[in-house]
């Protein structure tokens, strides 16, 4: 399994990070003194005061930005394998990617004109 062997360091890193986090949490839970007070349990200890609960409704702007991000994220993901073989295939691959991006640019300009890219 060649791929499996290649990913062995990442697996080791994963195991190490899980073990470390578990170890540190358990040690501090076991040996640390726990005397909570109102100030200590505040979300930002000795920082700014929270101005309201975190569960209030968010404005829809955040969602539109996230949607634009996800779609262009997918576009870049498709560009990566294209970029790897670009030298092999030459002009044909270039024209293809120009068409691909041109179609997506239509959506981009639509988002631009509709003001989805502006915050206020």
């Amino acid at each position, binding site marked *: 399994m060649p791929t499996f062997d290649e990913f062995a360091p990442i697996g080791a890193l994963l195991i190490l990070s899980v073990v470390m986090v578990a170890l540190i949490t358990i040690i501090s839970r076991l040996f640390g003194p726990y005397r909570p007070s109102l100030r200590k349990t505040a979300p930002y200890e000795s920082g700014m005061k929270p101005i309201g609960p975190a569960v209030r409704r968010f404005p829809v702007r955040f969602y539109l930005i996230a949607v634009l991000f996800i*779609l262009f994220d997918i576009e870049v993901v498709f560009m990566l394998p294209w970029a790897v073989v670009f030298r092999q295939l030459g002009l044909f691959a270039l024209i293809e990617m120009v068409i691909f991006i041109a179609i997506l640019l239509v959506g981009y300009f639509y988002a631009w004109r509709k003001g989805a890219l502006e915050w206020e």
Partner: protein
Amino acid sequence: MVPLWMYLFVAAALFCIGAYGVFARRNAVAILMGIELMLNAVNINLVAFWRYQTPFVMSGQVFAAFVFVVAAAEAAVGLAIIISIYRNRRSVIVEDVDLLKW
């Protein structure tokens, strides 16, 4: 080596868990999460069959990549619909959205 049927077993179990989420949950966002689980089960199947049956043809991986695209488009539009429903009816419980059911 792990035989092919064990991958299919995991994928079938994940698909049925997702289907249960779609059938039984009331919240529309939770239903969408169930759909994501089902799409992932399909992806496991596609890649497993590609690996064991036709590793010379890339169609399995390409299909899986297109499932990613469809999942992203579906999540974007589906969640937009849910937000729009919430704005108009102040609810994301699917039983409350019954204007067309007389």
